[in-house]
């Protein structure tokens, strides 16, 4: 049980990264981004491309860092993939969503458009790599560490939690201490007033997609490191991501963090009684319960 709880934290960290992106986009751009799961998938695959094709071709060695299952290649691929997906997010916003915003399209049309984007991204990935499951390092076996209470955990998983903590702290500092970060919070609070104050809200939108996309890519890569990479992985995360964001209070980044952990832990604990394939359903049930009991989420509502 304790072991499942710990795995839940690992999974929860991954979900949190994605959920933070979803909640930022919802709060600032005011749309439900159904392509967010595919951002995760894209992040994982771009890293795969870099790690298994580009870097070997460039002659970067295939060493690993101590007990971790990855090394220099992944270290290089990670930020590059985050930046790439950040650009993908910004790209689709400028290409599609911005035009729809200018036409005053309602939230549903924007969501529908993002659904289309999600299928387009998935098809592009399938065209390039096909439907097989892959790993960053096929055949690698890493022994688990023994922790107290008989919990086995892999070094990779400790790294995942640590990295997520770092990313979240960085994001927190960005939002609380930098001018752009405050402007993002302001725009999420009151977009009209932000405009009135002279804030370049379209620029803020770009930053939001950039950060959301980057974090989603990170989540996808971490999942790929921990489990595996396959074209449907992001889609399977979509419900848990939204459940986490809604649980924490949509628009609230810290809520998404907590929500992600709760969903992750709940999903892993559920495997004690249900088949693991039902994890998604567990996230879904939690989401429905929250929408029924307290739709604004744990931290939601309002000082508005």
């Amino acid at each position: 049980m304790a072991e499942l709880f710990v795995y839940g934290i690992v999974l929860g960290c991954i979900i949190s990264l994605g959920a933070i992106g979803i909640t930022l986009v919802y709060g600032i751009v005011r749309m439900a981004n159904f392509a967010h799961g595919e951002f995760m998938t894209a992040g994982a695959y771009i890293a795969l491309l870099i790690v298994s094709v580009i870097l070997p071709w460039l002659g970067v060695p295939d060493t690993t860092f101590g007990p971790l299952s990855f090394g220099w290649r992944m270290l290089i691929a990670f930020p590059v993939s985050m930046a790439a997906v950040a650009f993908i997010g910004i790209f689709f916003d400028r290409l599609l969503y911005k035009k729809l915003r200018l036409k005053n399209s309602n939230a549903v049309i924007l969501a529908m458009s993002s659904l289309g984007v999600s299928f387009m991204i998935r098809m592009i990935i399938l065209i390039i790599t096909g439907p097989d499951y892959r790993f960053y390092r096929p055949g690698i076996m890493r022994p688990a560490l023994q922790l107290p209470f008989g919990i086995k955990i892999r070094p990779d998983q400790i790294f995942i939690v640590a990295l997520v903590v770092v990313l979240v702290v960085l994001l927190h500092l960005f939002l609380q201490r930098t001018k752009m970060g405050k402007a993002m919070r302001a725009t999420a609070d009151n977009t009209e007033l932000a405009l009135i104050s002279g804030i370049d809200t379209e620029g803020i939108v770009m930053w939001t997609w950039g950060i959301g996309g980057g974090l989603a890519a990170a989540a996808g890569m971490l999942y790929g490191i921990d489990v595996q990479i396959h074209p449907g992985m992001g889609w399977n995360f979509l419900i848990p991501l939204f459940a986490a964001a809604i649980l924490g209070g949509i628009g609230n980044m810290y809520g998404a963090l907590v929500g992600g952990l709760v969903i992750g832990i709940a999903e892993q604990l559920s495997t004690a009684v249900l088949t693991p394939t039902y994890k998604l359903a567990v996230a879904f049930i939690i989401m429905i319960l929250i929408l029924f009991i307290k739709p604004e989420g744990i931290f939601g509502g309002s000082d508005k």
Partner: protein
Amino acid sequence: MTILKAEGISAGYTELDILQNVSMKVKSNQIVSIIGPNGAGKSTLLKSIFGILNPRKGRIVLKDEDITGLKPNKVARKGISYVPQVSNVFPSLTIQENLEMGAFIRTDDFGGRMDEIYNLFPTLREKRKQKAGQLSGGQRQMVAMGRALMLDPIVLLLDEPSAGLAPLLVSTIFEKILDINKTGVSIAIVEQNAKEALKMADHGYVLAMGRNVLDDEGESLLDNEEVAKLYLGG
């Protein structure tokens, strides 16, 4: 010297124009009050000046520059600041952060300016780490005005600053407005509280049904019997 003028403005939110051929002007260092019944289009006029709405007809001129149809963030850069009636603070940001957002387009060091604003509103200095959403109505209104003032505007547009405030706070707010004016900012204020608005106005405009009805010096309007009967509650 006329610092801001609106000439022949017709504007609205849909195909129907709320404002029909409305004109108004603000001279340097003046307080101009715009009064009239609900739905007269007073807020719409301010929004047209600030660029939230595009006027269908007419011009807005700031000093000598035609700024009709400019977007709000451009108008702000020209030196006009606007305080909307509702939803006029960033609730989850602290007072300090609200003011910082007010200074967003400034590229210089605005610490001095912030100090001046805190001198104008000492309560805000005390509470500057508090979230704006947790403040009382009166304090929120001060934050809203402070945010707008961070830009050192030439003209300040206020939309019903006394709305929803207890009478004691109303006079505090109006005092603050006078203080702001003394620092050299011209002010155009839309108000339901016609009496108070006219008391401090150098010039007043009465709007009704989207048109100019009357305009005169503030004091003269106060003494005007028609105005008193219709708009000042007898």
